């Protein structure tokens, strides 16, 4: 065993760390320099915390918030969980934002219940908290909610599917989000309500969770077809899940005679409606949620008045095969207003 410590090694170590750190810091420092300078000039700080950084829905939300912040002379701080469901990451982001002196926080909670204590702490310090897209449980844990009416979004595609089936006997598969997540539950319930069947109706032959993921959506659809090959209506929580279902159906040569409906209105999804892969989708507007949220925080900073209650940011049925009695817009409109 060597008993010969070598000081120059650790010097090398320190030097290496220092050098790389300096590089890393300069690199990111230059990107943010303008922002930190602005905070000195008294712009209102607004925090936006999304479920993840990567989902196009949240990317669009961030874009809306950034634009609105620029227009209103506010400074936007953003953060996100590492994965959908990362409550601890969101709690940390809330704490850091409160420490940095934000006037208000806009958040899409990853876990509607688990986030509540952390939000209560922030509100106790006078921070305006607005939930975007996903309500907290209880909803009173935030000052206000700016979101799509997910029940209505489900109802629209349910009514559409009912009309499109023209009285044919339906065998329904539902590709859901995850247990206990309000968005998923509301869309699912709304769809059944619009279709006019109860929760335990025998026409619902297969229900699987997909986490809104295309690969999982495909697996779920494959399993559902294995269970009940005669499925002819597929409700999906979002368009990635719908495209996964489409792939599974196509592999069985069933893509033409199965009706897929979905919710979201992302650009990829809307294009899939145009291409006929998805029959209809309920389009929602994340950009508007975030933009309205930033405005609400800025106005709270000005006059101390807090936004409250629920604001419906709207939902539109998009399809190129309109059915009598169901209001809808075509994909040209959908593509003009899509996100992602």
């Amino acid at each position, binding site marked *: *065993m*060597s*008993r*010969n*410590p*070598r*000081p120059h*090694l*650790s*010097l*090398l*170590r*320190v030097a*290496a*760390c*220092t050098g*790389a*750190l*300096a590089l*890393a*810091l300069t690199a*990111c*420092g230059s*990107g*943010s320099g303008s*922002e*930190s300078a602005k*905070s000195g000039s008294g712009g209102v700080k607004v925090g936006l915390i999304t479920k993840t*950084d990567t989902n196009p829905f949240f990317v669009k939300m961030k874009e809306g918030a950034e634009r609105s912040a620029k227009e209103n002379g506010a*400074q*936007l*701080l*953003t*953060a*996100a969980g*590492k*994965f959908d*469901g*990362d*409550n*601890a990451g969101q*709690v*940390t*982001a809330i*704490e*850091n*934002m409160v*420490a*940095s*002196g934000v006037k208000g926080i806009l958040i899409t909670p*990853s*876990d509607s*219940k*688990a986030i*509540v*204590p*952390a939000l209560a702490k922030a509100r106790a310090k006078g921070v305006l908290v607005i939930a975007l897209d996903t309500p907290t449980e209880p909803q009173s844990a935030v000052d206000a909610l700016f979101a799509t009416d997910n029940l209505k979004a489900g109802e629209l595609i349910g009514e559409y599917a009912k009309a499109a089936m023209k009285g044919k006997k339906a065998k329904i598969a539902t590709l859901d989000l*995850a*247990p*206990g997540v309000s968005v998923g539950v509301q869309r699912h319930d709304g769809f059944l309500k619009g279709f006019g069947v109860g929760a335990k109706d025998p026409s619902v032959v297969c229900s699987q969770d997909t986490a809104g993921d295309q690969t999982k959506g495909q697996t779920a659809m494959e399993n559902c077809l294995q269970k009940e090959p005669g499925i002819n209506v597929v409700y999906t929580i979002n368009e990635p899940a719908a495209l996964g279902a489409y792939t599974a159906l196509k592999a069985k040569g069933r893509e033409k005679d199965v009706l897929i409906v979905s919710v979201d209105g992302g650009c990829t999804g809307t294009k899939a409606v145009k291409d006929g892969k998805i029959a209809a989708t309920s389009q929602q507007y994340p950009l508007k949620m975030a933009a309205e949220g930033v405005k609400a925080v800025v106005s709270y900073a000005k006059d101390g008045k807090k936004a409250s209650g629920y604001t419906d940011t709207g939902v539109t049925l998009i399809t190129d095969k309109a059915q009598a009695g169901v209001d809808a817009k075509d994909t040209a409109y959908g593509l003009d207003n899509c996100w992602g």
Partner: protein
Amino acid sequence: MTATTTPYAGLTTPSTARRLLTAPTTGPLAALLIACVFFSFSTDQFLTGGNFSLIVQQVMVVGTLAIGQTLIILTAGIDLSCGAVMAFGSIMMARMAAEGSLPPLLAIGLGLLVCAGFGLLNGVLTEKIPLPPFIVTLGMLNVAFALTHIYSKEQTVTELPGPLTALGGTFPLGHTDITYGSLVTIALFLLFAYALSGTGWGRHVYALGNSVEAARLNGVRTSRLTIGVYTVAGLLYGVAALLLVSRTGVGDPQAGQTDNLDSITAVVIGGTSLFGGRGSVLGTFIGVLIVGVFRNGLQLMGVASIYQTLITGVLVILAVTVDQISRKKAR
């Protein structure tokens, strides 16, 4: 064998200055200080007692996991299951106390025991079959994850009784509110720093990590020691579970999904070698602080969170590079 086997070398005493310079924690400590200085100049809100208390509070869960992870990595093992085991422990404590109407302290005790049990099982499978720790703990990661979701029925547990969230409470120190949980974490770091550097057990852990054969020939009961290390690590995950519950105020079945890699990240940034036998828990403490300081500082500056991930990645590669270079030179 290596230039920095500080506690294991022990026979000759290098001068204090030399020891400081050659300690594996010197590099990480320098990095931490530089980061602190940088953030102090970049944003007004960084250099306050309240903010430092906040940073420690934010790293206490991963920090406590990382103590267990350090012990295991020092024996040249690895634990991928720590976050999942913690999640199971936390959901057990929360459900038993909130819904199963067990006395809260009993629920906490059972949660600690179950986590230690997972550690014991990891250790026994690693030693007795024997299986590579990577495989054993990869399997256990899935087992614990699934059990968490089955047992919790995917429901977040709220309205927890007082004792479960007591460690999340604060006391004032000057003008700063300190969380009790932070003190628990710091105390554990000090305890294990002492255990590793000041006791026979600690010397044996380093010996085992350097060479199982050599350790055995020197009379170390390696099998028992390994199982012991995994069990102690499991118990630490139980403490982390309690800290997690106290910090968030809920039992969350989704918790801990990236904490295995986060704890390994902290260990590696803190200068502990993944090949075993070299490193320290104090280095790991610095490692978790580095991650916490960057997350907090960049957030205060208004830098998007994806850059935190970027910098953490760079730091990991850097730390391992430095470790490799120093090993080569020492040979």
